[in-house]
């Protein structure tokens, strides 16, 4: 796909964008940037990817390349914020995207409403899991599911530690949901 895009195939590029954007977005969200910063990191990552197309040594690792680039840009944003010691804490701005229409459309029957409620609670519980788990799960839940190589690039953690961390975080989340009586 990367090779086809290099050769000028716009459809291949579209497939790359659609297939990899959720991963790039998950990296941005895992780092809790403000919306404005997050959008810029996302754009910068794709602009740079377009620019490096044809120069990327391992095209089959394009996902890891994107994830790693997004991570480094996120870290730069955080570094810049720390240096400026801005009063507005980016964490305060952290929330799900404003774009909530798909959720609202879910609520058209009681059963659907219950499901939406569970989804909403699941989302809330993520914040109580601790930073490492929250970050891992946010990247893990990108669709299509990222490879461990991609998760490693996205978060700067060793591939070998992802499996055990995933298990611990998912079980902690399940325990929290159970404790709140959400089945």
């Amino acid at each position, binding site marked *: 796909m990367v090779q086809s*895009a*290099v050769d000028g195939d*716009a459809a291949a*590029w*579209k497939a790359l*964008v*659609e297939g990899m*954007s*959720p991963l*790039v*977005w*998950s990296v941005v*969200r895992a780092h809790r940037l403000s919306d404005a910063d997050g*959008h*810029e990191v*996302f*754009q*910068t990552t*794709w*602009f*740079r*990817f*377009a*620019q*490096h197309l044809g*120069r990327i040594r391992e095209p089959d690792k394009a996902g890891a390349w994107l994830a790693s680039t997004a991570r480094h*840009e996120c870290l*730069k*944003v955080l*570094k*810049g914020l720390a*240096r*400026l010691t801005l009063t507005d804490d980016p964490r305060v701005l952290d929330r*799900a*995207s404003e*774009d909530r229409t*798909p959720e609202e459309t879910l609520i058209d029957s009681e059963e659907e409403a219950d499901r939406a409620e569970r*989804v*909403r609670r*699941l*989302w809330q519980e993520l914040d109580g899991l601790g930073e490492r788990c929250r970050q891992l799960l*946010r990247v*893990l*839940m*990108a669709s299509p*599911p*990222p*490879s*461990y*190589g*991609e*998760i490693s690039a996205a978060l700067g953690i060793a*591939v070998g530690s*992802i*499996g055990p961390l*995933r*298990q611990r975080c*998912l079980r902690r*989340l*399940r325990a929290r949901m159970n404790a709140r009586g959400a089945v």
Partner: protein
Amino acid sequence: MNGGDGMPEGPEEFADAVLEEELRQAAVVLDPVPAELLQVALEAFALHDLDARLAELTFDSLVDALPVRGAVDAPRMLTFRAGGTTVDVEVTEDGLIGQLLPPRPARIEVLGGPQATRPLTVDPLGRFTSDTPPSGPFALRLRTGAEVIVTEWLRA
């Protein structure tokens, strides 16, 4: 389900996989990639230019410089390199200044995305200025002689 692990082995592993998938669905609903960003990424294909030489970012004061005490608003210093060519850029809140080394005349534009370009004033020694600070991602495109050099995209 993921790169590392195969089929879920027991009930716990199965429940893990189910919860992971449930989270994935939740992300699709509650935190999708904003549509306007997908559009920008699609249009970014136009930035793909195999004829230009890429000047890689080799120094970024945000990452490489030691913090200077008291210098709260130190300008961002950037250095890009393509072979023997160096582009030094200083970004302040007033705009940007920089120089192409070795010094030579060039035409330089600031790119702000797949469409937006803005020419810069350049003197015969390759020194350039802009009184508009870049907002958001930017890159510089330099034409010197027959050569086109583009700096790596980054966020100002």
